[in-house]
């Protein structure tokens, strides 16, 4: 056996012994990476599902309170201050989830959600201390109607966003 033959024999022996090991290592690393990616994707999907549920619940609660506010308004032409207080306690979910809203891929929907809460909180701030009046003047009645109409409009928006969030195609 000459030198060349013996070298080939050695290489062959190495390949036949080491190749499965190398290939196994590559597959293990690749598989691990794919596993990590899939796990992260799964976690994000679960988180997105939670965001949709929690925000949807909060928006439904807002919609319900505004609907009751509207019923009492229709019956008495008074915006009950207690509903303003109830509505004020319905912004916590949005505040907590705000940094994770990027998980909603639909940029327009994200903008819509943020814009809704901005308007909602502005109207709440404006209403505190002005809602409810005993004055029988036209100006005072107009002011109350404006508050009621503002919330009624937001109630419709809340329903629209809630419906969009509940669609399975939203990701």
């Amino acid at each position: 056996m000459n030198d060349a033959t013996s070298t080939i024999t050695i290489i062959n022996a190495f390949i036949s012994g080491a190749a499965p090991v190398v290939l196994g290592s590559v597959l293990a690393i690749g598989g691990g990476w794919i596993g990590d990616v899939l796990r992260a994707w799964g976690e994000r999907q679960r988180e997105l599902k939670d965001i949709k549920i929690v925000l949807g619940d909060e928006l439904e609660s807002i919609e319900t309170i505004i609907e009751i506010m509207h019923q009492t308004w229709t019956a008495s032409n008074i915006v009950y201050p207690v509903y303003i207080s109830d509505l004020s306690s319905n912004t916590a979910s949005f505040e907590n989830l705000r940094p994770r809203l990027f998980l909603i891929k639909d940029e327009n929907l994200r903008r819509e959600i943020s814009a809704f809460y901005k308007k909602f909180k502005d109207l709440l701030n404006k209403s505190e201390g002005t809602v409810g009046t005993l004055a029988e003047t036209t100006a005072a009645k107009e002011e109350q109607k404006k508050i009621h109409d503002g919330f009624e409009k937001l109630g419709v928006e809340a329903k629209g966003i809630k419906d969009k969030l509940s669609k399975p195609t939203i990701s």
Partner: protein
Amino acid sequence: MNDRQKVIQYIISTLSNRFNVVDNTIADKKIVAGQFPDVLIFPKNSTADRDLLFIMKIENGGELIDSLPQWKELATAPITFYIVVPNVKIDDAKKLANATGVKAKFASYQIDNQGSVTLNYE
């Protein structure tokens, strides 16, 4: 009957057709935000705390500044708070509330020589 009672009676007589008006200066007083407002106004046929619509503090001859701690407390309640003051004190009351961050609505009253009350809500 002192001025406060006259104003309370006037409020009861003029608003009772629309609301359930309660004089909170007599027995079984209700506490709101740790204080005793002078008048509580509920919707008709209700005295449930949750339905409370308006609370009122009636000011008369005393210094407004003495009432400020009560105003501050009452203004924290999630209910529309009316500060009811004599006509001559309405500007001072507004300035004081504004300067101290008290969120309230105002009403001013006048009692003539015959003891008749006129009251204007803002």
